[in-house]
């Protein structure tokens, strides 16, 4: 029974770990990309950056607790 319980916990944690690891990898990659940058962004990179910023504004992670139905934790 204990093994089943542990297996259930591990299965429940896998999506959390994989999601966190993906963003950690992106974070490390961003530092490396910045260190290797030698010139200014081309126009398409600039447009893609702006589009990414605006797209993130509507994504669930960017919404406050209150906006997604959780009582606000801000003072």
């Amino acid at each position, binding site marked *: 029974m204990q093994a089943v319980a542990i297996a259930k916990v591990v299965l429940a944690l896998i999506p*959390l770990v994989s*999601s*966190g690891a993906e*963003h*950690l990898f*992106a*974070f*490390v*990659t*961003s*530092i*490396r*990309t*910045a*260190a*290797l*940058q*030698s*010139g*200014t*962004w081309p126009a398409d990179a*600039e447009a893609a*950056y*702006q589009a*990414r*910023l*605006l797209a*993130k*504004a509507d994504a*669930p*992670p*960017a*919404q*406050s*607790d209150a906006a997604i139905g*959780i009582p*606000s*934790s*801000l*003072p």
Partner: protein
Amino acid sequence: MKTLRNPLLWITLAALLVCGAIVNSGCVALQPGADPLVVRAEQAQTVAEGTFDFIINLDHIDRGFWRTNAPAFHGFVEQLRFKVPVANVPGRTNLPRYLAAQWQLDRAKLDYLAARNAATSNALAAALLSLQALSDQTTAWLTIVTNRP
């Protein structure tokens, strides 16, 4: 042999390899004609984007957990999500604070590229410092919440 079986050793080695890969990449020389101020701003934009995405998603994965176990951290992330008024954003009058800071720097950079003068370079430097401060605070919180006391 016992030492080799210690997972801490392997974790430390892996961390050193990752750090080495970052540090050894160094800072490459700028291409001829590249404006150092613009390149510096874009480097800050790249790092800030990765930092903010990491912390926002880390908190979003389990808001209840962070809210209960690290309320100060969750409160900081909520402050990053707080919507602030913005100008010059197509179809929007406000953006979450962390996106607004990135957008402001981008606009200041584009204004500077369109007309390089003292006013636009000062505005770009101010926006760069502002984003850098927010990004540094975020990195400090990442260090706190991803390490055990």
